[in-house]
């Protein structure tokens, strides 16, 4: 690794750590950094601060880190797989699939047993199932279609189908259910309690672990599928593993936080720009750090006093200009 890369990695790590602390400290009730340390190391901290930090802000900050890194890593893998700078898990219809699952539970709730719905687990399970079904369909097509661009279009179509099914459901639902669903689509990092974290964390770790395991093959895919085959890479298997890993990362996060757009597209480009490399060995940890930092920043911004903004709105403010910049740069 070049010394320049080490310096950027160190700065990014410190930035992420600093933002993590800032995210814990910032909020409607400010908590000083010294107070944060005394809560963590159990040195007679204030009971209210302790409650706010441990049960609200800490899981939220960790969720921000997990969501930022997961969506970015999934985006990086998709961009490499499709050799398309604008590809990300949402284009493959993952978020639409998850939305469909969530919409079914929220708006067709009268058909389901009450206990199942009130536990909140119904939403999570439904979102993951919805995301997985769309992904499996895309994977199925990927065995038939050899062309990456065609697969991308098929993904968009599956997403559209899921999206229109959601609209159909909305037509037949009562206003309360629609409001609940619309709130979910805004995205929120605070929905993840410690109980949910026990599910989310292993899913994310497996996904990111798979991405690191695939890094050499991802490098090979940069040359295009035919060259990659010539280097001894099994394309079908690699494509399947990439889709599974991205599905776990993007599907899992979407289920818990609602769709958070633009992060998956934008962060890989920021990482490439910072490190000026195409090697996934460097880009993967770089996207983890950049993605975590970006969502922490977004979360800090959503905490402006008196109003709490939806995370999706804030991430779009960052992400959309980056996408415009990519398109202009490509011309």
């Amino acid at each position: 690794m070049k010394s320049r890369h080490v310096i950027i990695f160190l700065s990014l790590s410190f930035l992420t750590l600093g933002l993590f602390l800032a995210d814990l400290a910032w909020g409607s009730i400010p908590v000083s950094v010294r107070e944060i340390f005394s809560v963590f190391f159990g040195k007679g901290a204030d009971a209210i601060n302790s409650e706010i930090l441990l049960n609200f802000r800490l899981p939220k900050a960790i969720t921000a880190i997990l969501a930022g890194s997961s969506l970015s890593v999934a985006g990086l893998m998709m961009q490499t797989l499709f050799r398309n700078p604008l590809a990300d898990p949402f284009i493959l219809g993952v978020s639409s699939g998850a939305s469909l699952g969530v919409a079914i539970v929220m708006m067709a709730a009268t058909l389901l047993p009450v206990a199942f719905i009130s536990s909140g687990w119904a939403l999570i399970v439904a979102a993951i199932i919805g995301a997985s079904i769309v992904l499996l369909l895309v994977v199925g097509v990927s065995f038939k279609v050899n062309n990456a661009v065609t697969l991308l279009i098929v993904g968009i179509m599956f997403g559209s189908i899921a999206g229109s099914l959601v609209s159909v459901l909305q037509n037949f639902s009562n206003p309360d259910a629609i409001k609940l669903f619309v709130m979910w689509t805004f995205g929120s990092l605070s929905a993840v309690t410690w109980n949910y974290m026990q599910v989310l964390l292993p899913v994310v770790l497996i996904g990111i672990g798979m991405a690191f395991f695939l890094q050499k093959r991802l490098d090979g895919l940069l040359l295009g599928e035919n060259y990659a085959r010539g280097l001894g890479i099994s394309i079908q298997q690699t494509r399947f593993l990439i889709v599974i890993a991205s599905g776990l990362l993007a599907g899992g996060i979407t289920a818990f936080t609602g769709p958070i757009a633009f992060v998956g597209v934008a962060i890989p480009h920021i990482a490439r720009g910072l490190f000026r490399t195409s090697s996934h060995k460097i880009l993967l940890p770089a996207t983890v750090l950049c993605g975590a930092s970006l969502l922490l920043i977004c979360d800090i911004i959503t905490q402006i006093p008196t109003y709490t903004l939806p995370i999706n709105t804030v991430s779009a403010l960052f992400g959309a200009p980056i996408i415009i910049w990519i398109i202009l740069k490509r011309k």
Partner: protein
Amino acid sequence: MSILSTQNLTIGYSKKGKTDVVQSDLNLELRAGELVCLIGPNGSGKSTLLRTLVGLQKSLSGKTAIDGKNIAGISQHEKALLISLVLTDRVDVENATVKDIVSFGRHPYSNWWGNSTEEDDKQVSEALEMVHIQKKANHYLNELSDGERQRVMIAKALAQDTPIIMLDEPTAHLDLPNRVEIMLLLHKLAHKTQKAILLSTHELDLALQAADRIWLMGTDAGVECGVPEDMVFNGSFNRTFESRSYFFNAANGNFSMNYPMTGKVSVSGNKTRLYWTLRALARAGFEVVENADVRILVTENGWQIDNKTISSVEELLLDLTQLVMIDTTPGI
């Protein structure tokens, strides 16, 4: 020594039970240390054959063996240790240096994490030197010209250190100096490294000069193999590229056009200028015969017709049209 051979190989496409045979019953042999050029008209199946030989596409029947092993039975990874590819696919990797691209050739040898060993570094720098691009090793790919890019991809194939290298149209999109350079480079590499190099090309004259052996592919006519000169003597090229508007000129290894001949002249004189004079006359539609009414004498610095000195080809052709009765009936 034969390193790759095919037995009754039939290539083509099969879709929904319908088979489209491109070439059938091919028995080919590729030898170590030889540059083989695959030539044929468009649509004869050059790319299909290459893709089938390297296993990017399934054969319809028959088999391909490398070192006696059937390629249908060996894994993708083993294949990567036997054949390296240079394809027509455009490689556009953001932020990748020349060295990064060439290092891809070492992929089949490295562990899952992709750490490079001293051997890898050595092979990469040797490959860079062999294609004479070591000075640009740290340049980004998008800073290179098309010819340099092609050399980088060849270096990648060399770094892969396989006994066979296959190249699909490596000289397409290149200007003449680069085309000649790439062909010479491949010829030298085949002899120096004792690799078997197979490439498809449209450049008949270049192939005739550089190839140790030609695989000539006709539409629905199978593949003829042989040393280039033998194939010139036995008229293979004329049979394969049969046409009314041009013919294979065995005198210079080029295709010449069949111009409609409308006038007759005789020509004699200076040798170098004679060649170009004949070309100009052919294009303008004058057949050169022994004893014509109009006689042209080619001199050191001009031409003479009936003691009139002419200094340029343009004037010469203008004078000739006035002197020789040309049949200008419409329809010719």
